[in-house]
């Protein structure tokens, strides 16, 4: 179990079980598959003054 689950702030179980990957690890493990779901560039292309809300309707 990750330390995240024992901190005072409650983190959702899904977050406590998530793998924390560096960008290089993501490239290495997921390759072309990952570009469409993990790339944070969309935030940057619009700028840091915006928030994503809600849930992506994506699919693996």
């Amino acid at each position, binding site marked *: 179990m990750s330390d995240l689950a024992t901190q005072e702030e409650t983190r959702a179980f899904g977050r406590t*079980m998530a793998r924390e990957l560096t960008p290089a690890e993501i490239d*290495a493990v997921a390759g072309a598959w990952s570009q469409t779901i993990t790339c944070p560039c969309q935030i940057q292309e619009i700028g840091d003054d915006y928030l994503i809300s809600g849930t992506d309707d994506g699919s693996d």
Partner: protein
Amino acid sequence: MTAPILIHSFPNDVHAAAVGWALRQLGAEVFFWPSGAFPAVQGLTTEISSAGDVRQSVRVQDTRTDLPRCKTVWHRRRKPAFLSRSLSPKDIDFVERECRAHLNSTPRLLSPDAFWVNPPRAAEQDIYKPIQLRTAATVGFSIPDTLFSNDPGEIRGFYDRHGGDIIYKAYRGATWAGEEGLGDKIAMGFTTTLRRDDLANDAALAAAPGIFQRKLAKDHEVRVTVMGRTLTAAKILSQGDEATQADWRLGYQNLRIAPIALPADIAAKCRDYMERARLNFGCFDFVVDPNGHYHFLEINQMGQFLWKEILRPDLPLLQMFCDFLIAADPQFEWHERDPRVTFKGYLESEEGRAFDDRIRNRRPAPSAAALS
């Protein structure tokens, strides 16, 4: 002029970029409607006249374009609302609800006679995994015992009933970035084998529902990509590497796949499922146990498919998918031929190299220019 094929996705979606490029290579007209900028930097309008005529427009920065009547709509990836940080927190709930209503209703009026991949109602219905499993059982697929719950007692009971041999996965692909302590890492959810200790924190378990499923003995896995009546199946050899035993996505770099012919009964059930779910496109995931029996895990109604062509260039999925969109036929059957467009060809093209450069160097996408 022929009616265009509309692609609705976010600008950094490599599938959308590659398919758009390939369609143009094949002479099709493409209209790209970028998602992920509404409402912060994208205006989206629907006007309905007293006669019931519908006009819809999208504006990105200073460029406004009417959404065209289309032959085919590839409803690839719709992103949620993008809100300005300057928006008062007191208004966020209101703005989110309004945006959701607008985003949900806009596509339903867009080219109602077009061929949709996938029809919005079918797509929305099928993202819910409990519904998938019920439909899968109805068509005769074998499915594993599965619990969808945020009740810690139920979850631990399920764990105990299955002798601790269960996995956890989320309803939806999940990523976290920008958290304190994460640095430049991204936290990603994968299918995970559980231990009893993982289930100790009631607050964490109760915070959100999860999917808990009996762990299946695997010989290998199979992904079936369906386009109309055409099924392309590949065996995924996930069990030789510990990293990919629970979730093959964790070892993409070393993943080995091989095209296979599906057993006739499994192919028939896939087609039956697609008809019942009213889907034109989808990617089925199966586990094949050591006795050769197929077990349905899920279907991704807008799954990724070009990775298979990268691993096996003899699976011409880009050409096949373009032919599918151009044919605009739910009964589409692909007839094998040498592909005129390939994913490798896209990646080596000027457009593909520019896309890759933008992703790797985190350069802004030309959102406004994409509106055409």
